[in-house]
């Protein structure tokens, strides 16, 4: 698991600056599919809780499309979030967009105590509005 600085998603949010935006990347260290391990959920949950001890941090991610299983990943992350201990204090906002036959699922996670919560929520959903807007 790696974190990278990634403010790419909010490049067009002209009125509000968002800082401490990180993309989380989770993957196996080999191409071999590992056996099911229930501790993966617990590990990721613990990392998310630790990450949001600073309530101003923002986590973004996009589901991997390389093998066409992005919907399955999206559903799995949603299930994990729903059963997590933190789902009342940390909100996960989701959206999707289909471009040239590839459906992209992207999400952000924000702490409810983030002072920019409303702006972030608005900025996030404005992304989809821009994507479906065909007006010149």
């Amino acid at each position, binding site marked *: 698991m*790696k974190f990278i600085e990634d403010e790419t*998603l909010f*490049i067009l949010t002209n009125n509000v600056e*968002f800082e401490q935006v990180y*993309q989380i990347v989770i993957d196996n*260290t080999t191409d071999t599919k590992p056996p099911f391990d229930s501790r993966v959920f617990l590990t990721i949950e613990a990392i998310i809780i630790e990450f949001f001890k600073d309530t101003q941090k923002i986590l973004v991610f996009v589901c991997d499309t390389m093998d066409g299983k992005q919907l399955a990943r999206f559903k799995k992350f949603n299930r994990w979030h729903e059963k997590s201990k933190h789902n009342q204090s940390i909100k996960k906002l989701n959206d999707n967009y289909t471009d040239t036959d590839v459906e992209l699922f992207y999400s952000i996670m924000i702490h409810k105590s983030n002072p920019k919560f409303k702006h972030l929520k608005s900025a996030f959903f404005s992304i989809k509005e821009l*994507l479906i*807007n065909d007006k*010149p």
Partner: protein
Amino acid sequence: MTKVNTDNHTKKELVKKALKKMLYNKKLVQDYIKGKVDLKTVEEAGIKFVDPI
């Protein structure tokens, strides 16, 4: 962060590029995790690893 003021069509293209860039960054980091690319390649793509925890 560089902010952009532009028309709706251009904004749409920029957002599409932004999503693709996120995916590209993710793929590069996944390749790094698997040892398929080195740190220099990742850094040259403008990717900065951080430890925010």
